[in-house]
């Protein structure tokens, strides 16, 4: 197990290096000189320019710059935002809990609905329920989520007035300093009555919007995995033992069917973070996705570079954890061939 762990970790290192390389090269390819971006259109004295170039290490050879960049990242230095002048890592750390909270709730929404729906659809294959689940899943999978978000705001918030339109919190009625960065937890810690409800209400629509595609993917995957497993010889063996259908499906089949589903759930991390960019933009959710889009608009390339590096790094690490979990739940791999 430990050997496997080491090997798997070692395999991700080249990906990290390549990621650093790509972000480094990409930002160098961006049209426009970073110095110009800093000084704006007022122009700059040549001596000052040379000094700035030296300060930023731009007078060094390219490989040297890359090594400095990589070295910085390894030591937690992801650059400094041009706009806010704060370190990128620090900005990211402030904003990331918001994204994490949203992504987590969206994933819970997707898993809690998706797996039972997929299992029931597979067991009742060909029934009205199956067709309904598959139709909803297909629609969800095909949904432009930015439009879906707007529709929900239009209907739930503007028309029915059930949920807040945007943001994480009702800041007029409640104010408290962030402790953990997670609004649900902080609202409880603040001790203010109604704060938790307000925080939860803000989360509902964004979670549904962000969870829609994962929900569709998980439901479809669970259904097809379940259908495949239900045809396996060992399920027939379980039925031949006279076990109840609930035990056959809920234990023997589901346990095996969940193995690929867990992998798919893990792979949704990327989808969730990508979807967060859109969802956060629509709901004015102060997370890293919205921040990334704003960085482009402000031509804040260090923030963009560092943000992409950090988000991708998180995805790589999560995928690594998923792989290790996969090993842990699959005895065939756990005990070697």
């Amino acid at each position: 197990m430990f050997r496997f762990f080491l090997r798997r970790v070692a395999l991700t290192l080249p990906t990290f290096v390549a990621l650093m390389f790509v972000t480094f090269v990409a930002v160098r390819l961006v049209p426009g000189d970073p110095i110009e971006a800093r000084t704006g259109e007022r122009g700059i004295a040549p001596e000052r320019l040379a000094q700035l170039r030296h300060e930023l290490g731009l007078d060094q050879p390219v490989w040297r710059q890359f090594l400095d960049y990589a070295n910085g990242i390894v030591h937690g230095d992801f650059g400094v935002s041009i706009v806010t002048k704060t370190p990128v890592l620090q900005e990211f750390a402030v904003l990331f809990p918001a994204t994490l909270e949203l992504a987590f709730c969206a994933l819970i929404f997707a898993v809690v609905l998706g797996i039972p729906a997929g299992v029931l659809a597979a067991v009742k294959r060909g029934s009205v329920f199956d067709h309904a689940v598959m139709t909803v899943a297909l629609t969800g999978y095909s949904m432009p989520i930015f439009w879906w978000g707007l529709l929900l705001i239009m209907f739930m918030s503007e028309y029915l007035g059930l949920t807040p339109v945007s943001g994480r919190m009702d800041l007029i009625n409640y104010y408290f300093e962030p402790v953990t960065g997670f609004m649900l937890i902080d609202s409880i810690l603040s001790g203010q009555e109604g704060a938790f409800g307000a925080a939860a209400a803000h989360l509902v629509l964004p979670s549904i919007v962000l969870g829609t595609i994962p929900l569709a993917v998980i439901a479809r995957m669970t259904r097809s995995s379940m259908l495949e497993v239900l045809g396996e010889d060992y399920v027939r063996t379980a039925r031949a033992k006279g076990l109840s259908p609930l035990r056959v499906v809920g234990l023997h089949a589901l346990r095996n069917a969940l193995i690929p589903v867990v992998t798919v759930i893990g792979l949704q991390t990327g989808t969730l973070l990508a979807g967060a960019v859109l969802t956060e933009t629509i709901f004015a959710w102060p997370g890293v996705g919205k921040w990334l889009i704003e960085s482009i608009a402000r031509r804040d390339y260090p923030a963009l570079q560092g943000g992409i590096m950090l988000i991708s790094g998180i995805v790589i690490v999560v995928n690594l954890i998923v792989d290790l979990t996969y090993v842990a739940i699959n005895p065939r791999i756990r005990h070697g061939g």
Partner: protein
Amino acid sequence: MKEPLLSIRNLSVTFATSRGPFKAVDGVDLDVAEGELVAIVGESGSGKSVAMLAVMGLLPWTAKVSADRLAFGNRDLLTLSARERRKIIGHDIAMIFQEPMSSLNPCFTVGFQIREAMAAHLDLSSAERQKRAVELLDLVGIPEPERRLKAFPHQLSGGMSQRVMIAMALACSPKLIIADEPTTALDVTIQAQILDLLLRLQKESGVGLVLITHDMGVVAETSQRVCVQYAGQQIEMQGTRGLFADPHHPYTAALLDALPERASGRLLPSIPGVVPGLADRPAGCLFSPRCRFATDTCRTVPPSRASAALGLALCHYPLKDGVPQHREFAL
């Protein structure tokens, strides 16, 4: 003859396919008594497994099962509720499958799967179940049973897996075991071990055993009675010695002649053509296109069953000592 454990009359199974209904089993009769070893033999597509899966109630929902009688002891399996039927399945009737490696659930230990069968049907404490599981593995010849119970199926070889399957089948002391090609996936020397084990257990416990196989050699060495199937129909049934000495259905005779070990010349007497599929089922006797004795009657009129003296052959002109008999003269 003893009261049969399992009694089947005119069992038919029809599958709904996209190209219309497909009759996989067509009019099978079978009685199996306690302590008896009956073989069902046939080539692929003969419906031999499907018939027994129908008895177990293990067919997919696309299958429609009908029978004049399908009874275990004095209980009618056709009218039994699913819940009542599950009390018999796995308890009084157990089944062993062809692919031992894929028939065990890869996610659970061997011990869990054996104990589970007992937990479903027997009133035993968990310590008693564990004790019996150890005894069972010992009985089927698995060394170090305590350690093996903790193993996962992928850690076992094919032969070992089949022994585990047998132990699982025996867990609730069934009255009848159905073994569906239990040795086909195994090597010859392992096959010999498994067959010996099955025969020994059958003799010792007096359980009824239905052995489904395509191998005439296995039939000859194990069974007391043989039921031959072709294209879903039961075409002959008689005692094993009688069947090999004097087959009454032309298909049985041709099948035996086509075995290399029974042939004398350099060329084998082969059967032309292939088993009819869904699209090309002949009007009369299903074997008529390949039968060298076939007449116009055979090609147009479905045959009826001959007497027990003629092996219940489903044939217009059953063979006697290799010569076709006109039914009216035969009896």
